[in-house]
């Protein structure tokens, strides 16, 4: 059984490595100007890139699709300088995050990215007993309704698995601010879920 499990695990690992090697070959071809290879990269990674963008901007639809398109255009432009020091998928994922965050910063209307402190204070965080907005809202929708900066920190840390140091660097904030934002975002989220989570 152990041998079978090891063999299966090894096969899974090597499958991932073959995918990474395939990505690298396609990326090198695309870097040299092969749009067909870049289309293959798009087909292989559109779901992952679009997924993280949707989570960060808190919305499906045209806006998220525009950002996904923008992320791939930026990837095409940046590919000639890509040094292959990380996996193509990791590089694309980070580029998608940067693209979404830039849009959130420049967005007009709605709560501004840099004004989350006020937005959080104004929204009124529910207490731990869940006496706030006790709506039966699913988790994805609840995350989507968080103020932009709190949502970004929560998504990057709790969903995408980033460290506070990485988040602070990407968002241009202190590590302590990232931790504080995460704490407040979780509190707010629990309140919106009515203490069910």
């Amino acid at each position, binding site marked *: 059984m152990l041998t079978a499990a090891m*063999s299966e695990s*090894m*096969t899974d690992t*090597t*499958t991932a*490595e*073959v*995918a990474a*090697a*395939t990505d690298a*070959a*396609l990326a*090198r*071809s695309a*870097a*040299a*100007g*092969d*749009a*067909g*290879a870049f*289309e293959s990269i*798009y087909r292989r990674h*559109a*779901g*992952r890139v*679009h*997924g993280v963008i*949707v989570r960060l901007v808190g919305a*499906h*639809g045209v806006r*998220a*699709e525009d950002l*996904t*398109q923008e992320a*791939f*255009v930026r990837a*095409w*432009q940046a590919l*000639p*300088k890509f040094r*292959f*020091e990380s996996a193509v998928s990791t590089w694309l994922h980070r580029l998608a995050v940067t693209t979404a965050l830039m849009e959130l910063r420049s967005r007009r209307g709605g709560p501004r990215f840099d004004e989350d402190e006020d937005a959080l204070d104004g929204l009124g965080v529910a207490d*731990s007993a869940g006496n706030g907005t006790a709506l039966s809202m699913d*988790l994805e929708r609840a*995350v989507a309704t968080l103020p932009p900066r709190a949502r970004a920190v929560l998504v990057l840390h*709790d*969903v*995408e698995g980033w*460290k*506070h140091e990485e988040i602070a660097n990407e968002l241009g904030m202190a590590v*302590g601010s990232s*931790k504080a934002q*995460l*704490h407040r975002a*979780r509190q707010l989220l*629990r309140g919106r*879920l009515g*203490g069910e*989570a």
Partner: protein
Amino acid sequence: MNTHNDDVYDDGAQTDEALRWQLRGLRRDLEPQADLWPGIAARIAAVPRQAAATGKPRARRFAPWAMAASVLLAVGVVWQMMPAVKPQAPAGNPMIRQQAVSMALDYERAFARLQQQANTHPEMHGAFGELDRSAAQILSAIDDDPNATFLLEQLRRTYARRLQLTQRAVMT
């Protein structure tokens, strides 16, 4: 990857841990509802790219040449010394995949070191692209059929040709 142990504001409650697990479950792929490729293709065709690399080829002529020769030698020796895959490998044996991955990684490292100099020769990009696309297709085929030993040899030939061309671009 965080481990959830780096939080100053760790609430410690069971509900908080449950919430984190549920949040981690949100990490999934979401395909765009529309096919975005036509729009991307139109934009990348219209937008000029920045120059791939800037260098001083005359002043640094010897260094890349020497590096290209050493890299070619290193990769070539490694892959000539690798034991041949037995033609009748048992079904599901990951040996071919593993060898393909090792080969790809060795060559990727070699290309990463040489490609910046090679990119200064745009006339070679077509040939590079064709060989890279072939390598990607062979890797995919190996992934689909890990018992096809002939694909490993095809991959080796493709990478060797690619490295040879890269070396030529670097030296001229």
